[in-house]
């Protein structure tokens, strides 16, 4: 390898997921196939077509954040701020000790702060504009997680937000890597979404991809003949990305490298051209300098909509051959987390590398016609050195990231 292209490594993880609050809880649940999907508790879902969700358990914002931040943040931003705190702590980074322009924040978002926005709209229509919070000016906004993480930690380097539905979680990590290659030492990246409130719920129904099952074990079944849409969830992961040399100089523990990335857009519906996912995979492998047989596991997007499962299975078998690589979808334990899903999958891939264990896809019994080696039932021991993470966004976004184990000293 030449020194011309700085490598980007992950040195810290912060996780808030429906089956675990914090990295330790999340991995303890995920490795044994423990699901966090259940009936919505945040409001009464009985009048809605879909009633199951993955809600982050045991999160009390006041235990972690000052009231100054509570008053101006949506639930999603509170989760993101705490996940960022945990990721920085995990990385052993004290932001106040680094030059503020050497640190940036790039997150993904798919919906913004719906719950905050709903509350203020209710005030607008029932009490009048004078009752709308001044913080509505930004608390709902897509970029708010990046902004608040940046302000809280004094990070003034390159920052931004990527909005491409579930693919955005990988697009953000890729953009963070781009900024590190351009010379920024550290980027806090990833994504946290959370819009399990009536307004957010209605918006999600409109996408027509939600499962309407009331049985948590039969509701979200990607690659299963009974696939009937997905269960939505909240949460995600925030990662600390660093220039590999800077991380090495400070003796940081390295989880792994963001080694490759590819993104494509699907052709116009009805054009008859091949969907873009396979090209995204090939681009990510090429970008990582990896061959298909280097990949030890694929973390699937796992839409659980039959047509989309077909496209994904075809992309995987097209690149790796039938049953050519283990495939898993731990998101069957969390629901789809939108922009939080892929960063959580990347974090999970790094934990799988560390623990030499591929976590399972739960509940699903894959249809033979897909010809994929889905890891079902329980976790599979495996020496994972390189993983591929896939994510697709509504309306045609396809992204793929290759994650590689840290170089052994």
């Amino acid at each position, binding site marked *: 390898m030449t020194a011309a292209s700085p490598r980007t490594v992950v040195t810290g993880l912060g996780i808030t997921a429906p089956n675990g609050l914090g990295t330790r809880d999340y991995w303890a649940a995920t490795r044994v196939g423990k699901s966090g999907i259940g009936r919505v508790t945040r409001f009464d879902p009985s009048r809605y077509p879909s009633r199951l969700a993955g809600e982050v358990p045991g999160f009390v914002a006041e235990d972690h954040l*000052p*009231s*100054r*931040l*509570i*008053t*101006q943040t949506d639930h999603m931003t509170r989760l993101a701020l705490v996940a960022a705190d945990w990721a920085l702590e995990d990385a052993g980074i004290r932001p106040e000790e680094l030059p503020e322009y050497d640190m940036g924040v790039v997150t993904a978002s798919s919906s913004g702060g719906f719950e905050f926005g709903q509350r203020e709209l209710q005030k607008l229509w029932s009490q009048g504009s*004078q*009752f709308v*919070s*001044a*913080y509505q*000016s930004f608390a709902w906004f897509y970029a708010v997680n990046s902004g608040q993480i940046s302000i809280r930690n004094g990070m003034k380097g390159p920052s931004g937000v990527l909005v491409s539905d579930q693919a955005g979680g990988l697009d953000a990590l890729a953009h963070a890597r781009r900024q590190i290659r351009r010379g920024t030492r550290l980027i806090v990246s990833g994504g946290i979404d959370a819009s399990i409130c009536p307004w957010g719920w209605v918006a999600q129904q409109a996408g027509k991809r939600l499962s309407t099952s009331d049985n948590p074990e039969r509701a979200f079944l990607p690659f299963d003949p009974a696939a009937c849409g997905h269960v939505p969830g909240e949460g995600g992961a925030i990662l600390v990305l660093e220039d590999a040399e800077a991380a090495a100089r400070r003796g940081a523990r390295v989880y792994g490298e963001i080694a490759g990335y590819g993104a494509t857009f699907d052709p116009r519906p009805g054009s008859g051209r091949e969907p873009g996912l396979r090209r995204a995979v090939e681009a990510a492998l090429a970008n990582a300098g990896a061959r298909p047989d280097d990949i030890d596991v694929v973390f699937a997007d796992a839409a659980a909509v039959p047509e989309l499962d077909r496209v994904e299975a075809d992309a995987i078998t097209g690149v790796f051959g039938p049953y050519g690589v283990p495939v898993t979808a731990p998101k069957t334990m969390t629901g789809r987390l939108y922009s939080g899903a892929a960063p959580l999958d990347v974090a999970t891939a790094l934990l799988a590398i560390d623990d030499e264990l591929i976590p399972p896809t739960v509940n699903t019994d894959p249809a033979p016609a897909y010809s994929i080696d889905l890891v079902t039932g329980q976790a599979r021991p495996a020496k994972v050195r390189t993983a591929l993470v896939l994510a697709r966004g509504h309306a045609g976004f396809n992204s793929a990231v290759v994650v590689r184990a840290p170089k052994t000293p």
Partner: protein
Amino acid sequence: MATERFTLEELKRILREGAGTDENVDLDGDILDTDFEELGYESLALLETCGRIEREYDISLDDSAVSDARTPRALVDLVNGHLAPAAA
């Protein structure tokens, strides 16, 4: 409306409800002449605070007068200036 005075205690209540308090700030300390910035309240927090005062006391505060009120004492005086005619 009966005679009503706006007090520091009322301001602190509204600050806490509308904007919260920073980790390193003690609103119950001697804050009357401390700059709002030092107390952790930037312009948006003061906008929210003044909006709440206007609603509760049914008054209208001038934007530039509000931004000139840099301390709790100045803001309390400003609000009382609007309440004074009713009390006279």
